[in-house]
């Protein structure tokens, strides 16, 4: 099954990508979707996820969300946020 999601890029991932957000159709299976997003963006998910940045699904840590609902759903927001501290 394919679902429509919005990928949003923050700080450094936005610099790599060169845009703030992107609408995409991806597989509902999260791992599969990550590969699809990786091949269509410049942010380097394989190399940098959980090292330089994290993904929030609808504002919450992706691992936590996947524990709860298992897969992506139509209309999900995926935010790519670097590990940053406050100001």
């Amino acid at each position: 099954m394919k679902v429509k999601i919005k990928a949003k890029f923050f700080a450094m991932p936005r610099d790599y990508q060169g845009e703030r957000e992107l609408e995409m159709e991806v597989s509902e299976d999260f791992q599969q979707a990550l590969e699809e997003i990786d091949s269509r963006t410049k942010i380097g998910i394989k190399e940098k996820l959980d090292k330089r940045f994290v993904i929030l699904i609808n504002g919450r840590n992706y691992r936590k969300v996947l524990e709860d609902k298992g897969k992506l759903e139509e209309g999900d927001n995926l935010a790519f946020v670097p590990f940053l501290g406050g100001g």
Partner: protein
Amino acid sequence: MSNNKYFGYAGKILTVDLSSSDYVVEDTPFDLIVNFMGGKGFGAKILYDELKPGCEPLSEDNIMVVATGPLTGTLMPASGHVTLSTKSPLTGIWLDSHCAGFLGPELKMAGYDAIIIKGKAKKPTVLVIKDDGVSFEDGRDLWGKFTFESQELLRKKYGENCQFMCIGPAGERKARFANIVSGGRGFGRGGSGAVMGSKNLKAVVVKGTRGIGIYDLDGFMRMCTEAYNELTVSPDTGGGRPKYGTNSIYSFMIEAGAHPVKNFQTGVFEAVKECNEDVLDKKYYKRHIACFSCPINCSKASRVDDGKYKGKFTEGPEYENMWSLGAQCGNSNIGSIIYGEHLCDEYGLDAISTGNVIGFTMECFEKGILSEKQIGFPVKFGNDEAIIKFIEMMAKGEGVGELMSQGVRQMSKELGKGTEKFAMHVKGMEIPAYDPRGAFGMGLAYATSDRGACHLRAWTLGAEILDVRNRIDPFATEFKAELVKSQQDFYAVIQSAVVCLFLNFGLTQRQITRCLQSLTGIKEWKTTEDILKIGERIYNLTRLFSMREGISAKDDTLPQRLLREPTKEGPTKGVVVDLDTMLKEYYLIRHWDREGRPTKEKLTELGLDKYK
């Protein structure tokens, strides 16, 4: 070279009495060093012992302790900070305030770990500290002048290489959240500028040429090199922060619903499309600025090139002020934020409190509690010109500005009509730029921060939202008490070793412990646990200080808006903070009783027996 007994320290404390224009220089006691480290720790111990309980913060009885720490002014990265501790005229309780830049190292090179400022000068005075010399000079010609002009005149008179702390017109007229400015930086929050004004002390000039002894030179150099390397590879200190400054998190905080809008009425800020860190970077940031010995250079020089604020500039704007003069007031005009921040620096006003108060006033106007006649002009959310006018009115004490400059707690007391429900403060300190309804830990952090609502005593958002390993749910209460307590203790260490708190986003506790160990050789500071114990001791002592001034468990709370008023839209829709559950756990972990008082056993364990 340094000629003192202790490595990492200047070895002397200078006590100044402004009433008699006298001073004494004494050795820094070793037990003060071992148990309280420096900076905030020195302030806590000295003020608890020497300040008369119940003293009026703006009377000559109040004391200011300006202190460096062992790491200040060394090759340790980001070691240019200095702390100031006093009793706050805004909150009436404990206040420690921290200033970036270059003043800390200069003070240490002048030979002092701390200066204790007492009394009140008969006329406006400039205190000049140059190596061994201390003098009290006439400051009448500077009284009334802006902070930047004052510093320029002082520089001409005392030399290019001096560092300063200086108040502006707001501090002189004792506005309750007046700041002290140093270069383009400041001692923010809580009104230390008003305390300085109440002492008739316009400025302090510092020049020092000595050095600092190092216990294990090779080891310390190795640790500093490692620290520099670590900082350059961290996504924060080597990525987002150097490029975007403290605004690196701006859009993300709005995405998470943690950036309060219109006095915390909502977490949705549509204007983020044109008002964000990317626009700041591309359009306004002109160059980077670093503090002493700092590779992060998070500070930015900004200028407005077009529009009605063309030509205005600031060192910033900081994330906090992008919020306080921005979303908090429903304002997305970046030019006005830059100008507003500059004005706050010139007058010497804390920009967080300033913006918080303006947002509160705008809500009062929109709700019909304050009328156009009372204010003098209409002040709907988003009115950038009103923000600028309010800053001037608060600084000068004009019209409604006089009441506003006393803070939201006092304002809501005088206005009544249920305004206390949306007066966004804790213990009298205005809440900064994070909405706890987007991350519950911040609610506990604000409620238990020792100086009133503050994001620099614990900043839980990273762990709650970004941390992959812990997977802490931002909207749950579990683990928040542990998180807040451990951050408070560790931040107290950083603020007593006196380095920039942002090191915490690039270095581990272990690395900082090893830096302290190789610098000082103090055998009681072997492990991270030893160091954290000092932080815990300090946090308990500042608690005792504020309890002596009358606070108790009932003050460890949040405004009703955060506890009972869910936001109606955005990622935090329907959420309120469950503070009680977190607070109970927090007291338990801290070994504080139900009244929030440290237990006798805890005080004994921390070596604070005498304060039982």
